[in-house]
């Protein structure tokens, strides 16, 4: 037993100390760099397909002045070096992505001591031909392309469906005195043509809609069969919700009338949108309207309503219903 450390032990101790010094130095350098230099990085994707958008121009602006820019690479990735002073601590910049074939998009970038608060910014670009279908965020239901039978045309069916939905559903919602600012809008977007029926949800998200309705017309025995598919932006449904109207005369306006199940499905998606927008009372009211249209409840209606009810301040009124 000796009180003098062996050489080997001394070496280990030195290594340990040196290691700590290196880590501390690295942290110090990083902290200094963060105040002076940082990156606004992210990815630009095609709003419908989810594929990367190559060659998009991304700019970072402060009070309207460009302070950095980049072009996306083959993976749609960009990174813009930043050199902002650490004060003021919180600043708001604008990240703008543009490409000749797409509708430009901008998002706010918050900074903390000169560093963006997000590590990766993901922006989606909508093809320019769909620019007309992009409305106000979270307020609408889009009726997309209705595929005609081979070699035939379906005159104006999306617009007619949108009009019919507007009357049928808005009158129901208005009975609940929903504030006009939050009432959904029903719009036709004939150019919105998903490649697969499973892409409806993506289309709803890309068009910033609660729900997306598409469909097809097939020749039936005597007349036409019109099938519709309703997808939602919130992945509420496992897949698109189908309904079918048999023996429809396409020249007849009733071809645009949707069945109660379709109405209720759309309203459940709208209700979910209200929940996301923290409009819980409107969410509950909308599920009640959906239930009224169906004449009965459904597991989806019950689930969405329960979720919204749980967030209402009214729960505190029920004994045992929370504080």
């Amino acid at each position: 037993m000796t009180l003098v450390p062996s050489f080997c032990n001394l070496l280990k101790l030195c290594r340990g100390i040196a290691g700590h010094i290196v880590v501390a130095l690295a942290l110090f350098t990083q902290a200094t760099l963060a105040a002076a230099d940082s990156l606004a990085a992210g990815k630009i994707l095609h709003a419908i397909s989810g594929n990367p958008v190559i060659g998009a121009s991304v700019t970072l602006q402060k009070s309207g002045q460009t302070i950095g820019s980049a072009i996306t690479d083959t993976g749609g990735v960009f990174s813009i070096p930043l050199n902002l002073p650490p004060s003021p601590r919180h600043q708001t910049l604008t990240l703008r992505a543009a490409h000749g074939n797409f509708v430009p998009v901008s998002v706010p970038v918050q900074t903390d001591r000169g560093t963006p608060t997000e590590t990766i910014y993901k922006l989606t670009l909508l093809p320019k031909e769909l620019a007309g279908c992009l409305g106000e965020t979270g307020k609408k239901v889009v009726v997309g392309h209705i595929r005609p039978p081979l070699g035939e045309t379906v005159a104006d069916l999306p617009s007619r469906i949108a009009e019919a939905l507007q009357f049928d559903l808005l009158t129901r919602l208005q009975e609940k005195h929903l504030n006009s600012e939050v009432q959904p809008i029903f719009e036709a977007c004939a150019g919105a043509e998903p490649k697969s029926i499973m892409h409806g949800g993506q289309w709803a998200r890309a068009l910033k809609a609660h729900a997306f309705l598409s469909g097809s017309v097939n020749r039936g025995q005597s007349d036409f069969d019109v099938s519709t598919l309703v997808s939602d932006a919130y992945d509420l449904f496992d897949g698109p919700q189908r309904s079918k109207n048999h023996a429809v005369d396409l020249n007849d306006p009733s071809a645009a009338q949707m069945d109660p199940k379709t109405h209720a499905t759309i309203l459940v998606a709208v209700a979910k949108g209200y929940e996301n927008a923290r409009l819980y009372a409107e969410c509950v009211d909308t599920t009640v309207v959906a239930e009224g249209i169906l004449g009965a409840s459904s597991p989806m209606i019950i689930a969405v309503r329960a979720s919204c009810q749980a967030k209402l301040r009214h729960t505190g009124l029920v004994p045992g219903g929370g504080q």
Partner: protein
Amino acid sequence: MMANYRCPFRTIVAAFACTLMFSVWAIAGIDVRLPQELNLLEQGVSKPHFPWAKYRVAVFSFEDPHGTGLGDAIANILAKRMLFDSTVSSIGVVNFQSGLSPTKEDSSSYFDKVEKLIQDQGFLISLWGRVLPLENELSIDAFVQLSDEATVKRFSWRLELPEAMGGGALVARLRPNRIRAQNLRTPKDEAVRLRNTSRNIQGLRRSPTVAAPIEASIRPDTVYVLKERQNSWVRVQLKGGASGWTSVGAQCLNYCARLLEVADFASGLLKYAERGELNDATDYLSAEALAVEEQIKALDSLNLRNIEDIQKRSLGRALRWVGPDRWTGPDKWTKIDRGSGPAPGGSAFTNVAIMARTAMALQKAYKRAVAHPLPWPIIRKRVCTSNFSNLCRVLERFTNNSTFSGHLRTEEMADVAINAGIRPKEIQKFIRGELAKAIFNSISINRDTVTQYATELARASLHDPNNIDILKNLAVFFRFLEDRRRYQLAESIVEELKRKQP
């Protein structure tokens, strides 16, 4: 001297002329071309029609997205029915024709335009709707909309609570006040008949019969007034002089007559607003119209004296729409399909049911209180005001008797007073008025019962979160239960909802 002289004959003539003028103008209508009206509104020119009328009604051209040509015809038939067959003392009906569909110049929707005009003109009741051709038939949706002001002033009810429960009142307003009154299906060829009927109604005939020749017509933008009635016929005078006879009932038959039920339903609401009398729902109305009728009747029965009457007419009617015994399928009397889903008006019927139960509990407590002798010191303190000094002095003398138990029955009080020579009228006034009020204010409902009502209402409010009446009633209950936290929460949500309201 001459200057002060008033000719009685002139005064009588002036009064007569005034009466005549009022009666002439008491029922009037106008067909207005909407594009012009909307243009004026856009320019900020607001010119209310018939500002003198006690009841101002608007009927809007029905939305007609597929050009059946029936939008104006249906509105015209309904407008004329409301005007010609109305039983209220003073009414002005504006029939807005065409121009409600979105155009290239004005993309506002049908509803936006309807709503804009209702708000601008402040109509008490509005009728609007849509006509849609289906495969083999026409689908006509008709709506009756009560203004918020009308709902608050004429279609709201209160159930006063005793002071022992903290006072205040439970409240209810008619819900819904935008009522899908009818969905009528007619054969497609009915369109021609409806258009012809509308045209015929505009014609003013020499005498009250369909065979009489037409001598003038009701034209757009011309005010017309009702001068005379003869069965279903009315003599109409146009501003400018021409007059003649027309009738809706005699010319609108079969399917058209079914359509009239919407106008009659709306007229029934006006009659109720004026005289408290309500029509029964009729066969071709919707479940919502039936629900509105039953809700009004249920709320009207809340203040009945007899517990069995409240149970049958108020609670019974409410429970037709909510709870495990909700009535479904075709209605017993009208055959209107009551449906099976949520009741029209959200949780309004739960609110009515709770108010009815509260009314019954209060009646029970009151009857119990009256049946028992009342402590004299309380009577003296609460009822013996200066109005009843004589009577109270007599009663005081009686209570000074050494055999007096300290309590008095109402019958005993009456006997004592009559023997002392007090007038029966005064005794009645004392017992039925002030004493009854004092007894009422001393009663209370069992706290457990109120807790149960509050729980039921709180659950109903989760289902109908924007129902301000339910929240107000919850606040009243929680205040009585001394549940400060829930009372403040209910009050705070009420304030939040009030801020949200346009």
